[in-house]
């Protein structure tokens, strides 16, 4: 699908390729993440979703989908509803109309076990949201132990494996406050991956970072995309979109204005609003 050349992994980021030693502890076999095979199976189906805050409509009839192994970048001006849209996928933001289906499970359904659904959907936040009272190791293991009921040993093994993959093994015993923003965000990605998610959501993962730290986080995300993780990414990093996205969704005023293959989006955006946005964001 994508024909961009592989970037050389930076020494600080030895993200091991897929195909780690198989585990016999009931965890994911083989690769540490779900190996992506592009079967065309729909992982996220967003169907005609609308959302209001009181009288103010923040999302208007949004419809799109993400297939297994696909990387979809959502962009748009601030206040366009892109963060709100991605948060409706795991129902962190409720919505009033439409339906979202994640890996076959309806989000807006009384019979749906939301905590269970969310445990299979990894989410990375703008402000990292690591738990500041817990060590990095505990941050990586707590949900595995409490939600997935893994043993402390299994959880720690998986947590530390993933910490190594984001290049932060030396920091396992530290607290989040002792790490830089970029390092915290890499831990947050590892924390989400520890749950063996079937899909990863990124809500402006680099917006709160100092410029020099954006690269290290994007590198991890690029590796993840190459391993076939299904990803939905809200970001302004058009370099990232060009490198790994399959599709780009452009939102404005709560609507999906453009939903196109990456080449089409960057080559010849159809809508005027997308053209204006692109020219602004690509100017510098």
């Amino acid at each position, binding site marked *: 699908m994508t024909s961009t050349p592989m970037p050389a992994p930076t020494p600080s980021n030895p993200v091991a390729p897929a195909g780690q030693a198989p585990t016999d502890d009931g965890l994911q076999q083989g690769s540490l993440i779900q190996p992506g095979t592009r079967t065309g199976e729909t992982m996220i189906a967003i169907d005609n979703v609308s959302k209001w805050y009181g009288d103010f409509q923040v999302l208007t009839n949004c419809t799109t989908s993400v297939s297994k192994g696909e990387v979809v970048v959502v962009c748009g001006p601030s206040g366009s509803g892109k963060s709100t849209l991605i948060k409706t996928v795991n129902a962190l933001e409720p919505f009033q109309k439409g339906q979202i289906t994640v890996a076959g499970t309806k989000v807006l359904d009384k019979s749906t076990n939301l905590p269970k659904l*969310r445990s299979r959907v*990894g*989410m990375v936040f703008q402000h990292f949201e690591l738990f500041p*009272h817990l060590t990095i190791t505990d941050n990586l293991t707590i*949900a595995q132990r409490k*939600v997935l009921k893994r043993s402390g040993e299994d959880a720690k093994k998986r947590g530390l494996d993933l910490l190594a993959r984001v290049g932060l093994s030396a920091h396992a015993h530290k607290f989040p406050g002792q790490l830089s923003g970029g390092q915290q965000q890499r831990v947050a990605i590892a924390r989400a991956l520890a749950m063996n998610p079937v899909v990863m959501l990124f809500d402006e993962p680099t917006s709160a970072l100092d410029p020099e730290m954006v690269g290290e986080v994007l590198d991890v995300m690029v590796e993840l995309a190459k391993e076939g993780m299904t990803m939905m990414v809200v970001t302004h990093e058009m370099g990232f979109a060009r490198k790994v996205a399959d599709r780009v969704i452009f939102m404005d005023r709560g609507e999906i204005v453009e939903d196109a293959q990456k080449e089409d989006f960057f080559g010849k955006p159809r809508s005027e609003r997308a053209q204006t946005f692109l020219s602004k964001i690509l100017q510098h």
Partner: protein
Amino acid sequence: MLSNFDFSVIVSSLPYLFGQGMVFTVSLTAMAAGMGIVLGTLIAMARLSGVPGLKHIAKVYVELMRSLPLVLVIFWFYFLVPYIGAYVTGASNPIQVGAFPSALITFTLFEAAYFSEIMRAGIQSIPKGQTAAASALGMNYWQAMQNVVLPQAFRNMLPLLLTQTIVLFQDTSLVYVLSLTDFLGAASKVAQRDGRLVEMYLFAAVVYFAICLTASFLVRRLQARVAIIR
């Protein structure tokens, strides 16, 4: 000028003052604080829950307790608890509760109102993103509270909780209205018996002052140690 005073009465009554009086005061304080914090946390969670009935009951409870003088509450519970107990168990006569359990229940329920206000502020001080992250990892309400919100709220509020406990330590002297003998009560008894009022009340004041000052100092030290690195 001090020649008329006899401070030896203090030395001779030390075993009684501390062995009986202070042990009572400290155990009542510790038990009431422990149970009060647990109950207060539950009340705070109820108040912050979106559940209409629960929210309002918790609010009325806290406002009621905070508007009543402690002595009045102590009296009320001392006379009420036996009847409530009889009603609950279905007994025909008021059940014997005893002065100490009655005092413990009273202080727990009364302090819980104050502790709940502290814990409410503590819970509200945790950023929404933390609960969102806990939810996104698949934790339910109780798991998120237990593992993410309350540990942080508790740590942030520990100095206030302990300061409130120091106040409770002083307030326990009000058990004299139930004829219970706490530290102050013990000092008072000796004072009356030996006619050494000034000596004993001075001594009691010095002891309360020393303990509370030391405790406040330790709280400040502890505050620095448990602070979450941000």
